[in-house]
């Protein structure tokens, strides 16, 4: 343990040096909580906070490509409104003046929303997503739309029609995906907070690869209204942040029932910040004994360090079994493409986006879709169409739904014994750009530890926990049962404290 802590200190020194180099905002706090406190008290001006972040974007965006669009003019107007509210004595909201980057699959009224696809290039949604509305109401300042794998299908943000997003920690490597732009934006200091969507790991995996916190809440906790659908029974939105408190703060602002989403759970917003200091004394942390192998040794070493840190903090480690977890990848890559093939049928060149003209509607649909969709999207539409088609439905889609039940039942048994489970987030650290782009199955395996959560609809989050090969960040994933966000955040905060105690800073 002592030896481990010593390693942590040197790792964190390196991280600190890197943070100092990356974050050039003089006198501007790096966390959303501190920015909001400063703006609300009048000690900070929202416009100054914004300009510092726009300057950081100007300095580094050329190397990173986190954004499809930076909305500097709209952001300046929003920041000025926050400052006017503060000056007038009106409550500017809990996220007052906090710059926020939005994944480009969330509808923003009048502002292009592309899903990084040519088929939606130029589309300006006629309404705001509920999350976008709630962030604005809380005083957050949206600064732009971040890059993603086209329609959120991918694990590296290499499938974007508008180019790759590079990892701020090493720009020869991928940022992960599909919310790679949102993860990179926070890691590069472009905004303290970003929002992503997670269908099979698309928040947690890029968070791990970029060294930031990323949360997928319980399905139904955050409204999906205005999130462009990929796989509707799996999609969920959530935050990226540099520390655990900021993700708690944002989730409190964006969660809670929304009548516009029929899968939204009728409940009050989550209450999370008060649990962060509560500690993990007596909590049961599950180790999955039959977890699919394949994680690199540098990643499993950090997972072991996390178990040690939680033990030292008073938690009890218990063994659990998840015998069906090894089938999760198969179930996911049948269910998600099946739902996608249905959801993406709407891109037909009639109501919005691209149209390639042809002599009749059927030819127009095909010509439009063939020209507008990228290779991975076509692959998943084809796979999903096949899995749903007559003669194959029972063998593939029907079976996958039953396997989904087995995995959900495994979780139920595991959570009878454990309060949370701990796994790696990604089996590997950030990989070089291009390394997996010709091998779809190798790319799919990146999500092996994140996918089971989505199938069950449970919450899970990735917290940075030191570094692995090449000094690159490693994330540890905390999984909790349905609506178990509070216990999940307790554990996340405890892991973060153990890193700080080991010589790091948040």
């Amino acid at each position: 343990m002592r030896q481990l802590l010593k390693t942590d200190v040197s790792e964190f020194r390196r991280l600190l040096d890197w943070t100092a180099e990356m974050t050039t905002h003089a006198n501007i706090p790096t966390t959303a909580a501190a920015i909001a406190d400063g703006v609300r008290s009048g000690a900070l001006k929202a416009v100054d906070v914004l300009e510092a972040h726009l300057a950081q974007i100007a300095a580094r965006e050329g190397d990173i490509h986190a954004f499809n669009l930076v909305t500097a003019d709209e952001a300046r107007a929003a920041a000025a409104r926050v400052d006017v509210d503060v000056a007038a004595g009106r409550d500017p909201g809990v996220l007052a003046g906090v710059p926020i980057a939005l994944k480009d699959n969330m509808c923003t009224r009048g502002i292009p929303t592309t899903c990084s696809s040519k088929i939606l290039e130029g589309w300006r949604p006629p309404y705001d997503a509920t999350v976008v509305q709630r962030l604005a109401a809380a005083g957050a300042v949206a600064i732009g739309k971040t890059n993603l794998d086209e329609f959120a299908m991918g694990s590296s943000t290499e499938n974007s029609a508008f180019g790759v997003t590079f990892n701020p920690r090493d720009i020869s490597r991928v940022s992960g995906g599909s919310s790679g732009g949102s993860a990179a934006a926070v890691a590069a200091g472009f905004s303290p907070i970003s929002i992503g969507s997670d269908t099979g790991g698309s928040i947690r995996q890029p968070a791990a690869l970029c060294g930031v916190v990323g949360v997928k809440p319980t399905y139904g906790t955050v409204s999906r209204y205005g999130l462009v659908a990929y796989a509707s029974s799996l999609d969920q939105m959530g935050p990226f942040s540099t520390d655990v408190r900021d993700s708690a703060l944002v989730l409190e602002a964006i969660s809670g029932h929304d009548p516009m989403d029929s899968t939204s759970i009728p409940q009050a917003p989550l209450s999370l910040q008060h649990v962060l200091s509560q500690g993990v004394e007596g909590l049961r942390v599950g180790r999955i004994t039959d977890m699919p192998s394949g994680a690199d040794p540098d990643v499993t070493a950090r997972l072991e360090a996390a178990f040690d840190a939680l033990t030292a903090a008073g938690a009890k480690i218990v063994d659990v079994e998840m015998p069906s977890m090894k089938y999760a990848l198969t179930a996911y890559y049948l269910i998600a493409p099946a739902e996608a093939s249905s959801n993406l049928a709407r891109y037909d060149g009639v109501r919005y986006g691209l149209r390639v003209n042809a002599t009749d509607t059927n030819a127009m649909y095909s010509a439009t879709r063939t020209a507008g969709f990228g290779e991975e999207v076509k692959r998943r539409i084809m796979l999903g169409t096949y899995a749903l088609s007559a003669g194959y439905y029972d063998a593939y889609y029907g079976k996958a739904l039953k396997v989904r039940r087995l995995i959900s039942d495994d979780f139920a048994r595991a959570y009878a014994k454990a309060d949370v489970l701990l796994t790696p987030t990604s089996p590997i650290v950030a990989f070089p750009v291009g390394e997996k782009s010709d091998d779809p199955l190798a790319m799919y395996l990146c999500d092996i530890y994140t996918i089971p959560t989505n199938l069950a609809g449970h919450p899970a989050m990735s917290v940075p926990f030191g570094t692995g090969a090449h000094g690159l960040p490693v994330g540890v994933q905390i999984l909790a049962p349905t609506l178990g966000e509070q216990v999940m955040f307790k554990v996340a905060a405890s892991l973060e404290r153990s890193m700080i105690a080991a010589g790091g800073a948040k």
Partner: protein
Amino acid sequence: MSESPSERISAEVVVKVSRLARLDVTPDEVQRITTQMAGMLEHFADIDALDLSDIEPMTQPYPLSNVFREDVVVTGLDREEVLANAPAAEDGRFRVPPIVGLDG
């Protein structure tokens, strides 16, 4: 289900699926997609051996049923704003090519 990869999916099925999905594929693409899909289906064969006869399919993670709201009139989206996004519009409606084409 014990077919070899090549037997799992044929080029003919890929062509049929592409038509159902409204995607045009070239003969080269058919070959490539057939190989890739066969590889994936082979990987997915791990669930073939499971006895799932008594298992209830799971279609959604958090069961909510009959989600209703009060029947109140609300303002919908602005028609002009919506039609401004359409590739072609006329007289307040979406304009499309002929439904019945020359090749049937």
